[in-house]
């Protein structure tokens, strides 16, 4: 166990940055797979935040939440990849920008 | 105060007047599409039955009473308190009777050319809604009826109208709905503010008779929200432009009902829900409303004069006529308001008749363009004669109905608003101008080839016009029975306004010569 000398703020800020990088990444990348990865980054940022708060609040509940987030992330990936597989089969090498039949 | 339904043996007369056409509509809709004659029969049966009920109403109506009579009441929604409350007084009585009379005539006089079944169903539904709106004594119920009339009318215009019917129907619906948006918010706000956290009720009499629950400034805002809705419906300048389109494109029956009955929802609304609910605000905004009315009179007449389409011309004349009604209503004198109420009926009869006639002309010539019509009087003298009488009624010739209302309105407004009345008087000249000019172009002159074979009125058409003509003459010569029933309620309304505001109508309006003698005596 490491002594808590640093305080929560650096962790939280790191989480915020990670979240931002993930969010921005989703906005700038065209490959749907990478976009999913960015969502994973965001979820990880949240996880980090939860854990930080858990320690700060001295509440194990925050850690349990991470557990559930992990499950959700996994499920999302499964379904998301399923969708991508379905799409790429019909439109090989399609990027997110190519998938824009509907608009307006 | 109010005479209850129990007084006539418990028969819910008013409710039946609303329900009967609605039932008729459903039955008509249920008849097989392949039996048009049956639909027609059923529709006629119900529409005439409803007319008969309104005549019965006339018989049981106690003419000395000022308050609401024959009140039917049943709870509809518990919280907020909304109930099916119907009642009639002198202000609504004739409108109801007018509705009862005009619908059969419209149905008989202007049958549709296709799809009889839905046409009749919508028409019956429209009648139910109009009846409901005139009889409702619950603000919510009124709003519901006020709003629902749009639907059948929309379908009537868009389904059976002429060339630009879709645009016209849409414009009509949206424009009126735009007004209703304000009305709904205003209605709810009034009820909630009035409740002050207590139980919310929409009962008209409760809301109106307990003034002072809403602050004066708030009441003015609320009045405005009501006024927008009614102004659109009337329609007053400058929110009138839906009317020419709707009137012109609507099928004849639609135009008749639109002009004869539906426009009255606006003016009736001003009386029943403007003056009654917001006496102080009505007084406050009276100059404004009167100005709008006067602008409408002059402006409508000018526009009417310039129309190339006969139906459009009649439509604009409605703008002018309803300007008169607005003027009378907000003159806030007993003469003005009585004249306004009477003029609603007059306008319904005269303009309804005009639209029927224009419809007959269209039937024969398939055009409404004035320039394409000429010299019809030669081949159709009787129709020309009928048209003349209706036209003279519309331009307010003494001895015919239009004059009585117009005169009272002008007199009433002259008492309180001399200069407005003076300007409005010019509307009388302009009315003669545009109507006679139109008549001249359509009926006078030598008929060209297309118009030479114009068919004279058939006796069935004459039969439809006869009651209207009779009313035009009767109301012009002997309006007393009408005014006798209108007067107590109007007096009560004006007194209500006086009680709840600083406004006092000049003594001469109520006392006549006695007032002047008293003044001289001093």
């Amino acid at each position: 166990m490491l002594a808590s000398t640093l305080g929560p703020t650096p962790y939280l800020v790191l989480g915020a940055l990670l979240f931002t990088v993930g969010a921005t990444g989703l906005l700038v990348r065209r490959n749907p797979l990478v976009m999913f990865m960015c969502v994973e980054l965001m979820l990880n940022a949240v996880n980090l935040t939860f854990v930080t708060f858990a320690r700060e609040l001295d509440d194990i509940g925050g850690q349990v939440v991470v557990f559930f987030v992990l499950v959700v992330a996994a499920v999302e990936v499964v379904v998301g990849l399923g969708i991508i597989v379905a799409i790429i089969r019909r439109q090989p090498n399609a990027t997110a920008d190519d998938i824009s039949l509907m608009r307006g | 105060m109010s005479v209850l339904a129990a007084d006539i043996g418990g028969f819910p007369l008013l409710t039946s007047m609303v329900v009967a056409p609605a039932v008729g509509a459903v039955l008509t809709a249920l008849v097989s599409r392949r039996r048009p004659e049956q639909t027609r029969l059923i529709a006629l049966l119900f529409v005439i039955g409803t007319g008969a009920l309104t005549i019965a109403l006339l018989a049981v109506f106690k003419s000395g009473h000022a308050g609401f009579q024959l009140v039917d009441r049943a709870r509809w929604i518990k919280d907020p308190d909304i109930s099916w409350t119907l009642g009639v007084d002198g202000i609504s009585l004739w409108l109801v009777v007018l509705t009862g009379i005009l619908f059969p005539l419209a149905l008989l006089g202007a049958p549709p050319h296709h799809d009889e079944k839905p046409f009749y169903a919508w028409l019956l539904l429209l009648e139910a809604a109009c009846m409901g709106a005139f009889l409702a004594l619950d603000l919510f119920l009124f709003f519901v009826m006020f709003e629902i009339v749009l639907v059948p009318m929309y379908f009537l215009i868009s389904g059976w109208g002429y060339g630009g019917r879709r645009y016209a129907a849409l414009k009509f619906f949206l424009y009126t709905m735009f007004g209703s948006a304000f009305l709904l918010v205003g209605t709810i706000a009034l009820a909630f503010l009035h409740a002050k956290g207590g139980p919310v009720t929409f009962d008209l009499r409760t809301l109106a008779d307990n003034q002072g629950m809403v602050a004066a400034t708030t009441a003015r805002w609320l009045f405005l929200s009501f006024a927008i809705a009614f102004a659109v419906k009337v329609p007053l300048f400058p929110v009138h432009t839906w009317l020419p389109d709707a009137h012109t494109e609507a099928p004849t029956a639609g135009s008749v009902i639109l002009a004869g009955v539906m426009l009255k929802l606006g003016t009736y609304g001003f009386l029943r829900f403007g003056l009654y609910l917001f006496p102080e605000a009505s007084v406050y905004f009276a100059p404004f409303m009167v100005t709008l009315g006067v602008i409408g009179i002059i402006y409508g007449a000018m526009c009417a004069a310039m129309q190339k389409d006969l139906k459009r011309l009649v439509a604009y004349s409605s703008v002018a006529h309803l300007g008169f009604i607005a003027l009378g209503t907000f003159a806030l004198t007993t003469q003005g308001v009585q004249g306004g109420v009477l003029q609603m009926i007059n306008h319904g009869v005269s303009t309804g008749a005009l639209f029927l006639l224009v419809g007959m002309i269209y039937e024969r010539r398939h055009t409404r363009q004035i320039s394409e019509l000429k010299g019809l009087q030669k081949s159709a003298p009787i129709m020309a004669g009928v048209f003349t009488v209706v036209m003279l009624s519309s331009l307010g010739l003494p001895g015919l109905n239009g004059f009585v209302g117009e005169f009272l309105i002008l007199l009433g407004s002259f008492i309180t608003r001399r200069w407005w009345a003076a300007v409005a008087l010019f509307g009388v000249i302009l009315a003669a101008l545009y109507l006679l000019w139109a008549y001249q172009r359509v009926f006078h002159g030598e008929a060209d080839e297309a118009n030479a074979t114009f068919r004279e009125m058939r006796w069935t058409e004459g039969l439809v016009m006869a009651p209207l003509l009779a009313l035009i003459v009767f109301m012009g010569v002997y309006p007393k029975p009408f005014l006798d029933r209108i007067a107590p309620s109007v007096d009560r309304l004006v007194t209500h306004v006086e009680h709840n505001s600083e406004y006092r109508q000049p003594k001469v309006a109520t006392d006549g010569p006695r007032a002047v003698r008293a003044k001289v005596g001093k």
Partner: protein
Amino acid sequence: MVELLVFIVASAVVLVGALGVVFNGNPVHAALSLVATLFGVAVLFIAQDAQFLAAVQVIVYAGAIVVLFLFVIMLLGVDRSEDLRSDALTGQRPAAVVAGVLLGGSLVAVLVASSITGARSSGAKITTGVPNVNQLARLLFTDYLFAFEITSALLVIAVVGAVMLARRRKGTTVDADEADPVTRLGVGQDAR
């Protein structure tokens, strides 16, 4: 001091990995960068007394999820590198950067300014004596029992969804706008 050192190193790994995900044109590389981030986060978990979660993070995330990603990349053969020099959507990239800066900025500002609210745990405390796993497990089956149960529904969805989506459907595409009318109306056969 140790914590600071760990934090600096781990956070560097996390951020570099994250940026790697964003800036690597090749999806495989991006996935590998993601692994770096996940590891970094796991380290930070440990630094904050969440040892079990760190383990799960490595096993489930790095071990399963990223592998899944890589598997799909290989399966579909979409490992072609993406050209990151330009963005076809006008304004998207600068807007994204601005949005990122604003979002990050405001979040950081909030966290820096008001992380201490005075709130204290109202649930189970992190007790140092008991193993992390035990504590988690206890909470999982008490306070979070329902949440735990509902994750089962999620997993069922994942299974059913994957089956549905990945099932190879024969037959032509019904609504490809380029398709000619004949194929457009053509009805494909079911998978079975």
